[in-house]
């Protein structure tokens, strides 16, 4: 039977060429598939990182009230601490205020019949960090005689306001012709 189409390439060669052609075809197919797959992976990665970012931002946004609550709680506790401290300070400053000292001095003055003159007043703040409420007052006063000075010391001692009341140094005369005595009272609270 006469063929309508012929191929005079030897059969073995034809078979080899066809195999090569098929191999090239599949190679191109796999190459193209690989390229498409890589493109898809890259695109998916890009999309994933994009959505990850979005999720992270959303999480941050969601976590913000919690942070605010924690901050609020922290500030509140700090506020309470500050308030306590302030109260303590206030109570201390009320206890050792110069007005209290003034009222004591007034009391002492009335005790000695007005024979008292305050020359110098020095309140020293606490120097010992272990005892925050420790402080001292130096009062330089002038009175008419020694008995008055003893009365004054007694008034200060009896007030219960100070831990320790003592005379600092000796009584000294202010002028030779007068009997007025100058003395310094050291009070520690």
């Amino acid at each position: 039977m006469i063929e309508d189409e012929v191929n005079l390439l030897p059969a073995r060669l034809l078979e080899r060429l066809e195999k090569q052609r098929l191999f090239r075809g599949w190679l191109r197919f796999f190459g193209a598939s690989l390229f498409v797959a890589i493109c898809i992976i890259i695109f998916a990665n890009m999309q994933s990182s994009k959505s990850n970012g979005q999720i992270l931002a959303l999480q941050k946004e969601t976590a913000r009230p919690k942070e605010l609550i924690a901050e609020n709680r922290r500030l509140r506790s700090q506020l309470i601490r500050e308030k306590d401290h302030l109260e303590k300070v206030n109570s201390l400053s009320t206890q050792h205020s110069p007005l209290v000292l003034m009222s004591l001095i007034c009391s002492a003055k009335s005790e000695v019949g007005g024979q008292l003159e305050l020359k110098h007043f020095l309140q020293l703040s606490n120097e010992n960090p272990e005892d925050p409420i420790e402080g001292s007052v130096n009062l330089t006063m002038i009175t008419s005689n020694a008995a008055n000075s003893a009365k004054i010391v007694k008034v200060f001692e009896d007030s219960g306001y100070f831990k320790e009341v003592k005379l600092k140094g000796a009584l000294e005369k202010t002028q030779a012709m007068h009997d007025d005595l100058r003395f310094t009272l050291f009070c520690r609270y």
Partner: protein
Amino acid sequence: MLKSLSKKKNPETTSRSTIFNPLRQGSRSCLGMDIGQFETKLVWVKKTPSGFQAASAKMLSFPPEELVDASETENLAEERRGLSVRNPFRAQLKADHDKDNLWNLEEVPKLVQRLACSLSPQIAASDVAVNLSMAACDIRGICLPDSERITDSAIQQAIQEATGDSSPSSYALLPNPKADSTKQRTFCIPSEATLLIASALETNKLSPWKIDGLPWCKLRLLKMMNDLPKNHFLPILDWSFGNPTLTLIAENKIKYVRHLNVGGMQAVLAGAERGFGMDLPQAVRWLELCFESEFDADPCALEMRHWAIQCCQQIVAEIEVAMDFVRWQFRDTEISRLMVVGGGGALPGLCRALQSELAIKVEPWSLKLADLELTSEFAVATSLALSGVGNDRR
């Protein structure tokens, strides 16, 4: 007898049908390469589902000086004249130099390299279908053994006996002139030549797909036209540098093939070479011009016309013998026209000269393919290219 032979597995068909190729579908392109004795014609066609998208045609001359020694060319025409058709490939296998022909096996790789260099990457990536000049092929009648099954080796052996050459051949069966004959006509090419061409193509990064035979290329051309009425025979004459080949086709079948012993343009051109001292391309150009009316008084032109008309008369004599044989063999047949393919068909003067000698109408082949006007010298290359993109590609 031949029925059993047709059952033989065709490895090409088998591999294509059984193995899935993912890239076989879609657009296809093919480069048709018609390697002639004088010129090589290339036609590239790309087919997409919407039709032919691109086509390009190119002709590359194959200077004979590169193929044989210069000293040989002087006596070439003289030697050609007295010799019958010989296969240059076989001659090459037997002797170092083939003085009869311009063909030389050793030059094939060089030719393919030159062709590959001239191709664009898109064209070079296509499948390549090749047709070799009939000078490289043999049409032989072989005696087959009287057996139920005819094997490939039996045919090979018969061809080797007929040609006297022990090397294997690539062959295809041709129809027998006589139905009851014990002889079988074969179209064969030495396998060494086909292998050499295929390996040369592969070396130059081209994809060999097919080596076709001239009669089948012509059959495909006729199938493309599809305008032949029933009982009409169409003789197709491949008229170019070498001796012409006449193929008679009817009902989409090759009915008769005859390689003529005379009538090749080389004989006409040899006269110009010898008589006017022209080289081959000049002689071809002069053959084109000598039929122009302005050269009516030119003695050289008249001489050339005389040689051409002599050539036409020789062809016509052979064609008439062939047609008489076909009319005798196939009753009630009509032959009304002769189609001319090859370089001869592209020379209007030569066609007119042939027409003046022949009783039937002479029609040079031409085709318009994707805005490209293809003339008869590209007929075989076009047929090859279309075979690679056709729907019935096997």
